[in-house]
């Protein structure tokens, strides 16, 4: 099912949470809303779910306007950041809740509800735990119960607010893969909010990067990482060092080195340039480029990480081949090989 929002505006008392947001989510897509806290991503998710209502703009599911529809009629599955499990109900009753509140005519029989709960417990890999209370489960188990509860009513759209935020790193990685599998197996259209770019880039089909109530870019993880559309995205995604630069005829001048701009064309004049760790080459001192001193060299990954200090005291990470010759204390020159520049 497509989810389309257009020109959404939402103001809270003294700030604008959404400032004209439009987004089209394709059927079957797994889309991440990524941004720093306060960028409006959770507000957008809540408006799609019908928990908040916009001051202006439209929300449509499969081409049908649902803007005036209450949360209970939208038939979306919503997984809350703190899971919001009903603490006085056992796990099985939590999962069955959406079925037991249906109008009498549409409500499945007790036996059918029990069958469905058992199916879902098996799906979320918690068979036999239906009799527990939420307080007796681990964080990862609660998260899966919350998902089972949301899936019980057969939603076509699944909304997840920071689904892995409260979990430790190991559990988080396992759950990511598993959630992706559930999404595909059930043919859902899913939108999840995260502030963790690794999570968004690793899991999503497309990533919508948000800042200050606006969407900066909606693209595949590959494009968002390698071809950031704006200075914000270039700065926010991945590890990049920021430089002031001059733009002239599509050529960027950074620290005396002139390079072609790989970012969308920008007007001539002053700009900001972003360079990633693997986009520097190390050269001997005195060559054209940025003078730096090596502080530390670590050979702990597939490539060596060389920590350099620039003349102005800034620390720059440079990714180099494992056989790099640099040693701590050595004076070197950093030569940018690829630069993305945006108007300042």
């Amino acid at each position, binding site marked *: 099912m497509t989810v389309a929002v257009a020109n959404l505006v939402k103001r809270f008392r003294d700030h604008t949470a959404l400032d004209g947001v439009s987004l089209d989510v394709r059927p079957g897509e797994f889309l991440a809303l990524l941004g720093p806290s306060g960028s409006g991503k959770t507000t957008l998710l809540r408006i799609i779910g019908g928990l908040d209502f916009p001051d202006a703009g439209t929300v449509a599911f499969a081409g049908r306007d649902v803007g005036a529809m209450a949360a*209970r009629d939208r*038939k979306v599955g919503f997984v*809350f950041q703190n899971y919001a499990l*009903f603490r*006085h109900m056992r796990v099985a009753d939590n999962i069955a*809740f959406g079925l037991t509140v249906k109008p009498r005519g549409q409500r499945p029989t007790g036996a059918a509800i029990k069958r469905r709960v058992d199916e879902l417990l098996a799906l979320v890999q918690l068979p036999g735990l239906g009799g527990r209370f939420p307080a007796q489960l681990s964080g990862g188990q609660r998260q899966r119960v919350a998902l089972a*509860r949301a899936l019980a009513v057969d939603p076509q759209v699944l909304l997840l607010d920071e689904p892995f935020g409260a979990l430790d790193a190991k559990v988080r990685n396992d759950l990511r893969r598993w959630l992706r599998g559930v999404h595909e197996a059930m043919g859902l259209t899913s939108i999840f909010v995260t502030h963790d770019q690794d999570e968004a880039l690793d899991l999503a089909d497309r990533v919508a990067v948000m800042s200050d109530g606006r969407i900066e870019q909606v693209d595949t993880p590959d494009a968002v990482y390698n071809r950031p559309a704006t200075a914000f995205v270039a700065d926010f995604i991945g590890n990049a060092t920021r430089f002031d630069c001059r733009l002239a005829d599509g050529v960027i001048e950074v620290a005396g080195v002139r390079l072609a701009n790989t970012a969308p064309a920008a007007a001539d004049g002053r700009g900001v340039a972003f360079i990633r760790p693997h986009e520097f080459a190390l050269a001997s001192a005195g060559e054209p480029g940025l003078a730096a001193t090596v502080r530390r060299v670590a050979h702990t990954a597939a490539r060596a990480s060389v920590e350099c200090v620039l003349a102005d005291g800034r620390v720059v990470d440079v990714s180099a081949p494992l056989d790099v010759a640099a040693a701590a204390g050595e004076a070197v020159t950093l030569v940018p090989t690829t630069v993305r520049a945006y108007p300042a």
Partner: protein
Amino acid sequence: MKTTAEPGWLRWLLIAAALGFLGINLALPLAQVFAGALAKGIAVYRAAVVEPDAVAAMRLTLTVAAIAVPLNIVFGLAASWAITKFDFPGKAMLISLIDLPLSVSPVVSGLIYVLLFGLQGWAGPWLREHDIRIVFAVPGIVLATVFVTFPFVARELIPLMLEQGRSDEEAARSLGATGWQTFRRVTLPNIRWGLLYGVLLCNARAMGEFGAVSVVSGHIRGLTNTLPLHIEILYNEYNYVAAFAVASLLAGLALVTLVAKSVLEWRFGDAIAGGGH
């Protein structure tokens, strides 16, 4: 093995101070009430308790509590639900208004009703024409009691519901529950212990209220005297044994509510622990 750094004598001193304070301020007066009531033997005690005016006062007190407490449960639930689950203009104002009966002297609360509904009051002439009696009659006593006791349930629930947040209710709504289903199956179970505690406090105050009720009652024996007013009359007539006997009834009602609360907590203790409260 010692687990605390405090010396033994300090711990004993603190425990003795706490128990001593409780003994002097709570246990001793309570014992004195019962001792005074039984000073002239069980027969005199019985006579004071079954005397028609005492029975009428008892009936009136229970009637007033039976009306005021349910009203304040409904009001308290509605107000705390509105205040904690929704945002609306005038919310801060409503919170201060709920506190008003606690900050106003009960005598003033009673006087308000005399000024509104008394013979010389704002609605007095109209009420007299239609032969409706509010002040110096049961309706006035009920109104004054409702006014004085209305913060108790709401004040118990608002902090609890604020702490629990709105996400449980939002989850229920997104799962398709109606407002009533959400309230009955999610909100109410989450707040039931706070609600019970608020109801007990409200009930104790409703049965024990003196000041506001005293102003609007008119002190007509057998008709508009509640237990606290009846006790005062007996006491002023130097009828100490009867005063203490009726006081022991009132104290007995308080003890019954206390025991009821403990029994409920004990009976459902597992559910509280299992539910993570």
